[in-house]
């Protein structure tokens, strides 16, 4: 499933977050969305899954406008929001049951898939009987991922999937996403962790001052792999290193 946006603009108060943004993202890729804090990555993801309406512009999924085929597209979309991904009063099992009901899935259709995913991410499944409010950040994130992929979505929008994860859990997530990637599936990942993005993404998009100064393949971005991702990113969003002399003086 391809992802595209046409002339997306979004402002909050007097702050312009997205400025006439357009892009086409082919099917079968993993797109790493990079940018500073407050650059608008989460806003873009929220617009892509229709949680926030843009001031102008439209989102197009697989050639169809989101607005006109909203329910059909939503049913094929998996979302991992940055915050509020779990209802803290429900147990993990109840979360899974609720997600299955929301996507109209019969338990018999996903029994083996669910067991496999749970055993992959969790060592102790008995924890799933406890309220989600008692879970660690990492456990919430992993459960959120399972919920996002429960219905085998063809488009996945993941906002900061690695935040709060220890290195071992992050590796689990990376391998999970690699296993999930297919020709007809698209995954969009927003992250601050360049190391993980480097390992997994096939395409890179840099969001800066409301626009994409770069969007293309991973190889193009890092000049055929000669540069590290970090160097290429800083060239775009912070070309001049800030002077620290004054800082050193006042902190002395």
């Amino acid at each position: 499933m391809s992802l595209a946006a046409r002339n997306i603009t979004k402002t909050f108060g007097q702050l312009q977050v997205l400025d006439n943004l357009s892009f086409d993202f082919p099917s079968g890729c993993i797109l790493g969305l990079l940018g500073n804090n407050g650059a608008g990555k989460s806003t873009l993801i929220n617009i892509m899954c229709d949680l926030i309406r843009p001031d102008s512009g439209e989102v197009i999924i697989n050639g169809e406008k989101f607005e006109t085929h909203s329910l059909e597209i939503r049913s094929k979309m998996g979302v991992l929001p940055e915050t509020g991904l779990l209802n803290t009063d429900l147990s993990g099992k109840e979360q899974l049951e609720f997600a299955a009901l929301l996507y109209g899935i019969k338990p018999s259709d996903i029994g083996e898939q669910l067991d496999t995913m749970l055993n992959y991410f969790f060592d102790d499944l008995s924890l799933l009987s406890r309220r989600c409010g008692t879970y660690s950040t990492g456990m919430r994130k992993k459960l959120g991922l399972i919920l996002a992929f429960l219905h085998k979505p063809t488009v996945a929008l993941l906002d900061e999937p690695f935040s709060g994860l220890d290195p071992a859990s992050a590796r689990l997530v990376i391998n999970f996403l690699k296993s999930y990637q297919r020709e007809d599936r698209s995954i969009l990942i927003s992250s601050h962790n360049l190391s993980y993005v480097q390992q997994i993404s096939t395409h890179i998009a840099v969001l800066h001052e409301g626009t994409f100064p770069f969007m293309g393949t991973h190889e193009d971005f890092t000049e055929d792999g000669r540069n590290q991702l970090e160097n290429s990113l800083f060239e775009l969003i912070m070309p001049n290193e800030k002077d620290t002399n004054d800082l050193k003086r006042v902190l002395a």
Partner: protein
Amino acid sequence: MESIARNKPSLYRLTIFVLRTRLRLIISGTDNTALNIGRILLIIGLIFYSIASAAILLVSDDAQRSLYYVLIMSSIPAIIISSGVFPVLKLPSSVVPGYAPLPGKQVGMLNLIYNLFRPGTLYGLIFLGVTSSLTYSQGPWLFIDGLMLIIATSALDFAVKQTVLAAQTHGIRGLKLLIAAGAVNSVGLGLYFVMYFFEMLTSPLIYSMYLLLFTISCVIYYTYTVELTETASTTSIFSNDSVGSKSIGSVSAASRLAYTRKHSTKPMYLLIPAFNLIIGLYIYFLAEETMSEVFALMLAFPLLPFTYVHNNFWGFFRETWLAVRLSPAGRKTKWRIFLGAVWLPLLLDAVSSLGALIYSGQFRLYHVGIYLLLIPPVMLLSYWSSLRFPRKVNALIAINQMTTFRNNTSGISSFVIVLFCYFISFLMVLGSYGIAITAAVLVCSLTAWQIQKCEVNSHYKLQAEFYK
């Protein structure tokens, strides 16, 4: 491979799921066993009250039944509004994720069920279920009217509390909304009882039609409020004069809450006891006319303990106490809390004493004068003790309300306090004012001690969360 999701999930199954999980949350929603036991004991007490109410309806003659009917019905809003003792109110008020493949109306309906099916609603349903099933021989009107009252009051109660919470955390103009729409709906609820009591309408059907209109009005009010507060929350976070406007990602949720708080809506807490005061007077005055002392006592029974516990635990005491403990500036104001704790028993004693005086035939007109003189100082005391805090304390109060620690109150202590209040009610009506006032002071002290004990355990954790 295509997604295995279907385009049309079963709304029926989703509704059953929401109701089932909500019920479990209310009965055993916390990891605190004592609190869960307290809840169950409270429900048992409520069942006894329901049976007593049904018995009154069954044994009364036709002339008195209308009065008993309206008194029993008035218990429903009293129970629902006063059941904030176990608050489960949280923002956001949505159980269905915004990206779920459901039409907007279905999402709204599921969220409505989730938000309205709260402890007070469950207590109301238990009360209605037992009472109406025991009196089924007298027709369906009690059930129909009661059900509409439960929906209407729950919607009204949730909308009011949500607005207060949103106003505290995001600084929206909650009070204006409350005064405009909430007051209109409250008057509508009051009118229903007044019309019933004075037989201004002619048939049960017309009463029910009125109640239906009122219920629709309350649900519209709820929908409007939820929409407004959610929009206002988003605008507030991103507004230009908030810290979060320029670098959302770098501002933690806690500090964002603290800095976006613009004004307090503490005066709302003055309206709650005032509302209870009116209901209390209403019941006592009506009871004086036609009811036997025992029946009147049974009907007035749940009001006092629910009111007392509600105001102490959900009202100002818990949150201000915790805020005072946390903030260095707040610690200087600690003694205000103790003074503030006095005003509630004073007010409640005043209400109960007046009723008791009327019962015992010792009521004189100057009692009303004393009563009226008592109201302004206690109101001012409560305002001064709970509102005039430094900004930092107010910010912490807002955060306290957003945490789960507020639910850690021991259920057993809550239940013991409720029992104490029952006992005080008995003493008041029997005329033992001295003993009753002593007992009220004792209850007040116990409450303060228990709250302090509960909060001390959690405040270090909260402090860490706030300053991280």
